[in-house]
């Protein structure tokens, strides 16, 4: 049997196989370093089997519990047995920290209960556990146990959005003092938007200048734009600290000139200002390069043509140049904005307390509080925001580009 549909053999098949072989390293690399971690992270944000694995019987019995009154003795018995076993197997800490995130203050109670249960041979378990700590006589405690026992759960996402699931199953906002993430998301978006705008205002004229210069001069200017890429991020950030700190170059200069008094030195670093200044500097090339590549494609005769037709420089810019540079503006803004909302190191170094972005909070949950589920959920929300932005960009400028042919 011969023909184009033949699946194996023949030169076409071999060529395809060879092509696949050539892209295979990259494919494997992407799967291992990108797809797999991303998948793991997203899975972790909704899947947490630890409590369900350690307290299986307790959770099974709790399914019949109505949630209002105290659970029956059988639940206490199962819980006592499983908590004691977890205590001896040294897995109780994982359970305690997870339950603690739903209901604060339970961590120490649970670990203590695990220790003290070893000395108690038999029931009634309800009295024994209540004797260890009265909190076992509170239905909320059991609700917390039940909530953390779900293998697949949306509670990390509720948390990431400053919401909580109440014991009756309804979703409500967190109490005022515990709402942090939405405000942080808002601040991250706001700062990123501001940085994008600054990059556009600073980068547009430079990109135009580079696009209009002679080749040798535009090369030089491009190198100057790219120099920040060639120095270490730490060096760049440290340079900003040297410039902006209280005893730094800028403050010293302003005091010497007499614009500010010695006591009135400006706080320009370790706060939001520091984050904005340093990140604008770091991200500027990502705005300039797409702008430059689009502007280089706009013939110089376009502006001459507009002038010959009677347009003022302003009209020529607004109606002829700007619309044609929009794909570059869109690409640059998208790139800078997406990089900015996920930026970690610069805000961590110069952000102080009010210059922290959502990624710093993710890092905190990864490294300090060890709440990986919440960290993953925050990352998932961030990913969603990026995808929405990308879709908006496609909608606005993708369509435009189709129109241009």
């Amino acid at each position, binding site marked *: 049997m011969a023909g184009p549909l033949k699946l194996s053999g023949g030169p076409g098949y071999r060529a395809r196989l060879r092509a696949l072989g050539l892209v295979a390293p990259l494919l494997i690399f992407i799967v291992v370093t990108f797809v797999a971690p991303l998948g793991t992270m997203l899975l972790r944000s909704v899947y947490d089997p630890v409590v369900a694995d350690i307290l299986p019987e307790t959770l099974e019995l709790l399914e019949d519990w109505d949630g209002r009154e105290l659970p029956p003795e059988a639940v206490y018995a199962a819980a006592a047995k499983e908590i004691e076993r977890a205590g001896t197997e040294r897995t109780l800490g994982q359970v305690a920290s997870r339950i603690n995130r739903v209901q604060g203050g339970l961590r120490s109670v649970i670990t203590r209960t695990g220790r003290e249960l070893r000395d108690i041979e038999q029931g009634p378990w309800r009295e024994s556990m209540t004797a260890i700590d009265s909190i076992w006589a509170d239905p909320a405690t059991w609700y917390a146990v039940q909530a953390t026992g779900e293998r697949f759960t949306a509670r990390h996402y509720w948390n990431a959005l400053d919401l909580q699931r109440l014991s009756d199953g309804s979703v409500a906002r967190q109490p005022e003092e515990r709402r942090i993430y939405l405000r942080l998301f808002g601040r991250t978006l706001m700062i990123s938007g501001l940085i994008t705008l600054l990059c556009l205002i600073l980068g547009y004229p430079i990109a135009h200048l580079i696009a209009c210069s002679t080749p040798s001069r535009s090369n030089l200017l491009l190198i100057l734009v790219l120099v920040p890429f060639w120095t270490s991020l730490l060096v760049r950030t440290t340079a900003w600290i040297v410039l902006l700190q209280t005893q730094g170059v800028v403050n010293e200069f302003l005091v010497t000139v007499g614009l500010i008094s010695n006591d009135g030195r400006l706080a320009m670093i370790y706060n939001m200002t520091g984050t904005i200044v340093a990140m604008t500097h770091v991200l500027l090339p990502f705005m300039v390069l797409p702008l430059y590549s689009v502007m280089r494609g706009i013939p110089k*005769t376009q502006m001459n*043509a507009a002038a*010959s037709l009677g347009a003022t420089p302003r009209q020529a810019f607004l109606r002829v140049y700007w619309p044609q540079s929009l794909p570059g503006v869109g690409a640059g803004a998208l790139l800078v904005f997406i990089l900015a909302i996920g930026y970690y190191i610069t805000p961590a170094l110069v952000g102080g307390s009010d210059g922290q972005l959502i990624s710093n909070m993710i890092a905190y949950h990864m490294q300090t509080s060890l709440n990986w589920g919440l960290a993953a959920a925050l990352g998932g929300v961030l990913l969603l925001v990026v995808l929405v932005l990308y879709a908006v960009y496609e909608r606005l400028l993708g369509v435009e580009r189709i129109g241009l042919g």
Partner: protein
Amino acid sequence: MATAKTIEILTETGGKIHRDTFSDAVGKNNNNAHVEFRGVSKSYDGRTMVVKDLDLSIRTGEFVTLLGPSGSGKTTILMMLAGFQAPTAGEILLDGRPIHDLPARKRGIGMVFQNYALFPHMTVGANLAFPLEVRRMGVEERRERIERVLRLVRLEGFADRRPSQLSGGQQQRVAIARALVFEPTLVLMDEPLGALDRSLRDEMQYEIRRIHRTLAVTVVYVTHDQQEAMVMSDRIAVLREGVIEQIAVPEGLYEEPTCSFVASFIGESNQLHGRILGTSEEDNVYEVDTGGEIVHALKVAPCKVGDNVTLSIRPERVKINPEAGRYRNEVNATVEDLTFLGNQLRVRLATCGREDFVATIPNIVGHGGWVTGDSVRLGWTTVDCRALNHE
């Protein structure tokens, strides 16, 4: 006194006759210089002059072509007139007024660019509306003008297309329409047909000529294609290294070139080098020794006996084996090569110290049956043999 005259143009599309009126630029002030360059020089780097001491006067309604090889300064002249470059010295007058301090947008000159420079993000209609909108023209008049100019360039119904959806020739028509829609009296064209293929170029040459005759606007046209210049122009200025070598009507350039550069740049010409032996007939004819043959040539460049000159002879003015005594110049030659070109026969000959002397013979009675190596006699008149500066 200038009177506002209009001209009427009838066009027919789909059995419908349109009567369009355009302001008549010629009627306003004919015979006056519309554009005048007075001692204009231009240098970009302060050392080399791209345009040297240019004097040029263009009459209202005239079609003047600046013709020259690349680097001859023709585009620079156009850019100075359009207002995109400032002259280093001298002044440019438009309708008798100096325009050096007038920015391009206030000169009211229509310009057609080499690569059309249409706005790719706008439709054809929006492209055409642009110069009218910046002039704050009303919607109704705008629409009318756009329709009218689209009829003029024969692109009715294309207003909603994007430039990228048009062919090269159509884009060119849009570019011309856009340069005309605000009714300028002067239109500049910078090699507008350079990007088109041969047959389309012929068609567009005809179109541009038709539009020029219809509207009677003044056109300054830049090209490096001598045939294009011949087809379209009222007058052609041949430029070399920033200097006008000769400016004349097309026939004048061809028949009476005043320098060997023009003689070889416009059409084909045989150039013979020789030394003047003597003059005759009240100094109007030189006797020239060229490669051992004595040739009588018409005096064009003033020279003395003993000077070197270049003789220019058009290939079609050379007669092979003429009747004896018919021509004042008769020389011996050897046939080197024959090329049959359909309507004519090209004969390459060795004579007068050259081996690439060309004679063309119209294919009226077939070719003469010569073969390579034949000895023949060549004849031409004194008038067709012009003695030009030796270079």
